[in-house]
């Protein structure tokens, strides 16, 4: 999302200590049987894929993520108004009483903030969390984005099979809650408190919490492949030149019946695939996000211009044409907008079948991936409704 939310963290904690000269990838094995290999045939030929889960490397987990203080921010709403919000949200009288007696209230430049005790957290139901999260999303989006962690895939598989201890998994299970199709956590700080001094477990928890589902995708090229059609699809009418001879070479080579998609992606997605944001790509208050990753898909080099505070149309109206057809092509950008207020929600690039190239948010913890569309949407399909618009880069020349 183009919210710059991550910078909020950055401002609190200073920059994360990441390698200066290389995006870093950390890939964790998918839990056996969590999701299977796949295959899809269409105008792109036949692709096969298998999953990997990408976890952020330890040095991409900035200090504020380890903060164990639960702080809720209600913006300009005064303390008394907050109690009304909680009551409307279905909080029990006991929960509200605890917040009144144990909460540490503060009003300042940042608005109305309350330091929340364990007792309040433990008294909350999943429905309370869902309602409170919705209030934050609608009324204090920046804080919402800072508070909420959406779990990829809509399940807890990233934490299973020894990824964290059974005790931590149980804690996560109790703290997680649904926002329509999205499984979320809002009590990271509480979980940190429960983990005490166990730094390694805290790191394992954070890595799994920010795990992103990805795919290794290969194009099948064998004697039955209609190579000209395949070349046409992946060349995208000249937007992705220079791939036909690799494809022909594979077809001519005995024993080489599959080509990893990394070999025929345009330079930019190839450069960032499986990588995380590098400090050299960002400017103050603006790290690369989903739009940055998608609008430059066919560009040979990344442009810092995309980080400037310009409207989407600034980038789209000259170089792209809007596509009304549902028949998507390789490299088409799909932009998602909230139907209620028309705000931009997310954008991604169509690859083939239901596989997309995406960066889910501007966080340093979210990598650039090839992913199943359903996995990508698992962190976006919350209670808000959205609509999509498709854009196609105009041909070169």
């Amino acid at each position, binding site marked *: 999302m183009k919210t710059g939310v991550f910078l909020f963290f950055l401002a609190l904690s200073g920059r994360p200590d990441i390698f*200066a*000269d*290389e*995006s*870093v*990838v*950390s*890939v*964790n*094995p*998918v839990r*056996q049987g969590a999701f299977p*290999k796949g295959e899809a045939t269409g105008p792109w030929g036949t692709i096969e894929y*298998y*999953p*990997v*889960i990408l*976890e952020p*490397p330890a040095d991409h987990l900035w200090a504020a993520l380890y903060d164990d203080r639960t702080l809720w921010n209600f913006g300009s709403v005064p303390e008394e108004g907050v109690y009304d919000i909680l009551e409307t949200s279905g909080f029990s009288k006991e929960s509200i009483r605890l917040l009144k007696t144990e909460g540490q209230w503060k009003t300042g430049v940042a608005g109305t903030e309350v330091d929340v005790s364990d007792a309040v957290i433990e008294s909350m139901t999943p429905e309370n969390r869902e309602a409170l999260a919705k209030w934050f999303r609608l009324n204090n989006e920046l804080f919402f984005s800072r508070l909420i962690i959406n779990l990829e895939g809509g399940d807890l598989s990233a934490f299973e099979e020894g990824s964290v201890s059974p005790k931590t998994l149980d804690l996560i299970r109790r703290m997680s809650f649904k926002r329509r199709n999205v499984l979320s956590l809002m009590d990271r700080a509480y979980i940190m408190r429960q983990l005490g001094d166990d730094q390694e477990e805290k790191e394992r928890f954070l890595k799994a919490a920010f795990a992103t589902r990805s795919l*290794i995708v290969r194009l099948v090229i064998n004697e039955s492949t209609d190579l000209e059609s395949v070349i046409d699809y992946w060349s995208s009418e000249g937007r992705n*030149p*220079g791939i036909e*001879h*690799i494809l*022909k*070479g*594979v077809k*001519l*080579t*005995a*024993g*080489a019946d599959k*080509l*990893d998609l*990394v*070999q025929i992606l345009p*330079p*930019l997605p*190839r*450069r*960032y*695939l*499986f*990588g995380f944001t*590098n400090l*050299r790509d960002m400017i103050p208050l603006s790290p690369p996000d989903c739009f940055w990753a998608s609008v430059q898909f066919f560009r*040979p*080099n990344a442009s810092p211009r995309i980080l400037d505070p310009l409207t989407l149309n600034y980038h789209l109206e000259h170089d792209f044409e809007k596509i009304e057809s549902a028949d998507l092509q390789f490299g088409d950008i799909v932009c998602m907008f909230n139907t209620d207020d028309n705000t931009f929600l997310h954008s991604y690039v169509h690859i083939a079948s239901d596989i997309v190239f995406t960066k889910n948010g501007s966080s340093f913890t979210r990598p650039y991936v090839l992913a199943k569309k359903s996995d990508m949407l698992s962190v976006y399909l919350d209670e808000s409704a959205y609509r999509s618009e498709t854009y196609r880069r105009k041909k070169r020349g």
Partner: protein
Amino acid sequence: MPSRLLQLLLGALFFADVTGQDAIVMSSPSRPGNGVVAAPPGPWGSLEYYEVALEGPRGIHSMLKLPSQQVEWFLPAASRAELKELLIAAGLTESEITDLLSGSKLIQDLEAFRIFPAEATVLNMPTPTRVKLYRLLSRYEENRFHQRPVYINSSNLSDWFEGSEIPRSVIQDIAVLCYPTPGGKGYHFSDAPFTLKQAGSVLEEQILFQGLFRKRGLIVRLRVSADKLTQETADYWTAGYKNKAVMPLLESIVQNNDGGTIDIAHLLPSTPRTYLNRFPDPSDGLSGRFPDWFWTCYNFFRFVPREVYADSPARDSLILQEFETGLPPSEFGDMLLFNSGGKVVHGCIHIAEDIVFTKNGADLNSPWVFMKIQDVVGIHDLYGDVSISTFRKRKTSETVTP
């Protein structure tokens, strides 16, 4: 064609079977067929690779300066006597010189001779004579096709030109005109102008040049299985933390596709991964220069490439500051410098086994590719004297400040 048969006989060790309709095959040396080849296992794991031909983007050849069909040899000599001395110094005999110049047309100015040999002279020249003459010609940049000959690493020319649309008759000429590299690995071909005679239209010229000047690269993959995956393998590709950690990725392959392969493009740092099997884009030259071998080597581990080139004044000091001499065995990411005639003529990056990452020219028609190092030597070793020195990237904290 008797004269060609005679040439074949004279060629002794290096001749081509061009008489029938079978594959046009040079007798020696050879290379593995066009299948997937398994490399010997090592600390990098088990690699396998195959070769693909890469043609430059369409349109690039319309930008190239096509030569005249007339073969031209440029030699710096102020008089016929000087010209003869030059040729004798290059090892040519009186008889060979006479054969070469008879029937040739010469244009002489104050400093040089431009020799336009007869077609038969070019075609029928014995291979040993061709080797000596073309090695001499390669010393002068005016002879651009001799200074940067086409390198052919296969004795099977039909295989080599497969898919190129070059007519068989042209391949037959090429088989006659090829000559062995000084190191004996593969062949050089410098008579591209000669082959233009067989092009009947601009389109045929383009097809011919596109086929002649296409490049070769390797697609390399790492086979990983549960029983063979070791920490040593992961450490090899991590290169002392200069590269990303790869063990989790390899474990993931094992878990989801045990015994399967992963394209090693995934194991490269960002910058070489961006450029692998790619020809330069015009946007790569916006600073005024296109990347060359030093740009490629120096920026291998760098996320943001720095604009430094083989002739940059800072080149040697950067090597001293940021690299140290590497002792064998070579490691992933080592910079290999090719020394010839007292100067560095090329550099490339060691990947694994005898596979390197290289860009063999600064021009638009030179892609970034994986190659076998002996083939890279074959391209750049014009005089048989190339020696290789290894430089290892220091960790950032160990960079030497002058």
